[in-house]
């Protein structure tokens, strides 16, 4: 059993359903805090199972000592800084800076006793097993691990193009946009020698692809006289592609019973992540549009102020992602399969709700938002189910 959680899911497709572009010369600064938790994966028959295989432990020639079970729960705190700039009214570029504030893994280890061990006159207890393991140089796996404080994940560069609209689109206020994002490999892999460890690159966070393309559309409905929609229907189709990841294999110098794989796996191995295809649907309702006033935000124009986003917007959405097979490539196909069997072609469904409070109409260049996204509600297949709560603040700036 290896307790390193090489992958944590942050249940988000970060920029789905968005067709928003910034006005020319405008900056948007967005700071958010994400709290993600993950404690299960979906099996091939859509059952929730542990993130880590049971580990039967054997005493050579004396049968099964017992089964070491881990039901790990991983919690991840991330600060996400997004800086966007409107190059033109139809082209916005951005930089996304995810910083891991802390990763915490609670291993939740348990023990199922195995065969009677005649050498000690009993079946091994959990403590017996660890005493035995210690005599072989294997330290006890901690109940809890925290780390990665302040570590950078992969930086992401992105661009969004508001696509041209033909007559009927314009008439119905339909918008559509294409988005392309590309990650820079600034994150880290998990520690191959640690019994419990989490990496920070995008593949390990599993939130978004290294390269992503989105085609999103928004259809506002029930617009008032100022063009503010009471309802917005959004849709997004996207593809995500991950770079092959190269890992160093553990040599067992710290955990000889758990991590000595290099002699047969090879000193390094590669993970070729399966790509994603996904679609999102989003419903936004603005029950309170609120008052407005001419201000610096609207350039002193009262009409423009009335057209700014509603004071309160509630949203709900669903994202369905099909995932392709993820392959491990080492010198041992047997070891590869031990991983690949949980990363076969599958799917996952994210359900999300959110609320946004926008003060732009009031002359304050600030939007606050919170949302909750869960992959636990709808069982998936060969994917991991993360739940994420996020809060953030966004401001719009124009310096000239």
């Amino acid at each position, binding site marked *: 059993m290896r307790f390193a959680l090489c992958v944590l899911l942050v249940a988000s497709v970060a920029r789905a359903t968005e067709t928003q572009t910034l006005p020319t010369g405008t900056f948007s600064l967005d700071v958010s805090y994400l709290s993600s938790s993950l404690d299960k994966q979906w099996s091939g028959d859509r059952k929730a199972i542990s993130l880590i295989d049971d580990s*039967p*432990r*054997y*005493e*050579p*020639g004396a*049968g*099964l000592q017992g089964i070491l079970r881990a039901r790990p729960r991983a919690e991840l705190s991330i600060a996400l800084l997004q800086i966007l700039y409107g190059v033109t009214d139809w082209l916005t570029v951005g930089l996304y800076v995810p910083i891991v504030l802390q990763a915490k893994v609670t291993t939740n280890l348990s023990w199922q006793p*195995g*065969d*009677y061990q*005649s*050498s*000690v*006159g009993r079946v*091994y207890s959990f*403590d*017996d*097993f660890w*005493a*035995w393991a210690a*005599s*072989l*140089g294997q330290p006890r796996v901690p109940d809890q691990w925290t780390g990665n404080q302040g570590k950078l994940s992969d930086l992401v560069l992105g661009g969004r193009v508001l696509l041209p609209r033909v007559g009927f689109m314009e008439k119905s206020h339909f918008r559509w946009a*294409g988005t*392309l994002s590309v990650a820079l490999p600034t994150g880290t892999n998990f520690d191959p020698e640690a019994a419990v460890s989490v990496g920070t690159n995008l593949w390990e966070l599993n939130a978004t692809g290294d*390269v*992503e*393309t989105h*085609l999103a559309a928004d259809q506002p409905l029930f617009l008032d006289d100022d063009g503010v929609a009471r309802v917005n229907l959004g849709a997004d189709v996207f*593809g*995500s*592609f991950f770079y092959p990841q190269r890992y160093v294999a553990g040599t*067992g110098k710290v955990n*000889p*019973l758990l991590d*000595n794989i290099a*002699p*047969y796996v090879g000193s390094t191995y590669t993970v*070729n992540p*399966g*790509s*994603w*295809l996904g679609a999102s649907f989003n419903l936004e309702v603005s029950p309170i549009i609120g008052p407005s006033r001419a201000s610096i935000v609207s350039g002193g124009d009262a009409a423009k102020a009335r057209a700014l986003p509603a004071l309160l917007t509630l949203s709900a959405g669903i994202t369905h992602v*099909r995932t*392709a*097979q993820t*392959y491990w490539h080492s*010198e*041992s*196909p*047997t*070891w*590869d*399969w031990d991983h*690949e*069997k949980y*990363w*076969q*072609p599958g799917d996952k469904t994210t359900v999300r709700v959110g609320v946004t409070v926008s003060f732009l109409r009031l002359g304050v260049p600030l939007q606050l938002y919170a949302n909750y996204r869960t992959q636990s509600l709808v069982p998936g297949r060969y994917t991991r189910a993360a739940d994420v709560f996020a809060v953030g603040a966004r401001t719009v700036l124009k310096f000239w």
Partner: protein
Amino acid sequence: MKTPRPLTLMLAVSLGACAPATPPPTRELIDVKGSAYERGLSHGTQLRSKIHSFYTTLLTNALFPYLSREQPDIASFLPVYAGERFQNGQFAYQLLLDSAHAIEKSLPRAVHEELQGVADGSGLSYDEVLVLNTFVDTVMAVRGVALAIRLTRAPQVESIEFVGVDHDGVDNDGDGVVDQPGEGTFSPWVPALAGQLVEVPTTTTIRMVLTDADGVDPASLRVSLGDSLFTQGSDGLTITSLSATRLEVVLATPLDAASIDTLVISAGDLALRQQPPPVHESFMRTEELVFTTSGAGLAPRDVLRPALNDGRTRPPGFAVGVRRSATQGAAAFLATDFALLDANTSHKHTAIVRHQPDSGPAFATVGWAGMVIGLSGMNANGVAYACSPSDTLDNSVVGSVFAQVADLTTATLTAKGTPIGFAGRKVLETATDTASAVAVMKSLKHVYGWACTIEDAAGGLAAVETDSDIFNDGSGGVFPYAPEDRDATGHTYSSVGADDLITGSSFTKNVPDSPTLMIAGQRLVPQRSWSGFFFRSRRVMDAVARKLTAQYGSVTADSLQTLLSDPEVVDHSDSMNEVVFDLGRREIRAAMGTEPTSDSPFEITPVSP
């Protein structure tokens, strides 16, 4: 409207990577031909990945650390093992390598070349391949020494007495004498291969005396009879301390009439030992005594051990050869369940290696990646063998200590002779029938104790038990017998009829395998007094005997497959392969690649491609 180009690319990439991964085989079939080196090279090349994986996961990650736990005990007895070369985790590897080099001298040149071929093909070093192919016998021998030493610290059964049996008017021990003095009393306690008492009155009280220099812990005492467990405080069990070192245990419970019962006894001592962890008392081997009660009507020799369902016993390996009157159409089959050491890895590395040598018959071994040996196999002449370990202190490692006993400061535990897998290989390479195969076994000095069954397509059937004959008892360390052979009491050794032989993981003919004596402060005893396999082996052999009797005369390859997969005879933790050799058809039917092996289907492989 055009789809944006990047999206098109992404869709293509995504869809192109949808093919699900497929599991690699956990059982391999490879064909090798040519010279010994060429066959080894082909083997090493074809199974390169699995050989590395098997070596690391079984030896480096499991067996070496496990053996290294014995270092302090062994070094206190043989100080060489406290030396520099054996430090820093090198104890097990160096110890096994020393033995491997000693064993290597007994192996023919062709074997060296084949091992070199495996090394060149796989990328392991020659020494690593040598260790991989010799460790089984060496580890069994070293483990035997360590276990025997450990058991001398544990409680011993001093005596077992069935009170009143010596005046019940019945010949309870089958010696032809009724109620002779001492009938029903076993002092000293020596286990027997079959039933030890028959027709015991149902009101009999059983009195046992246990002894240990550190005192016997009454709280650890377990006595079971049938499905009833008795511990300290149980009704019917009385525990009395006779002295600081002796404990009397009296079991007074009504017995069922006309039944076969197993009395099971275990206990630990009062000294808590820190090494090797976890902290533990020294526990005696679980002792068993099989008896019948009034009305059963069986002679001791005819008593078959009943199944034990206490969750503390696992069936070890066995083999059964059948022929002529036992089978449908007078076919010849050899079937084996091999069980020893899976460690959650062996089952992922199973392999049938089919050889087409430049000269001699084609043959196939049933084994594991990187091992040129197999513990069973068959050749194109229709000769097959199957072996299971049979613990003995009459082994070459003990012999090496004997040879150095005058100065233990330089003595080492070194195995010598031919490991059973290489003996089997020689059988496959040269034997034309069972008689010539037995002759091969007789021509070799053996590293350790094994119980093998050999059979040919014509129905030649023999069992061969081996030890290292370090006591020079004149046997040469080889004890063959056939279904028709009789022991001193006039009974067949291990047959239920005229045309079968059952061998287990214990000796049937080689009894006692070693004398009882003290040497260098350590007590040497026969297999039946120390081996953890002994009672389990006798039980699985009896289970096989019952199942074979039920189908005698109509045995087929299919029915043998069913027998081998019966839960009563399959070790759920350490089963390694189930094989039926169809000698007439020259076919190998093997179930392997899972743990337990009974979860695998039998697949048929002709011995020649």
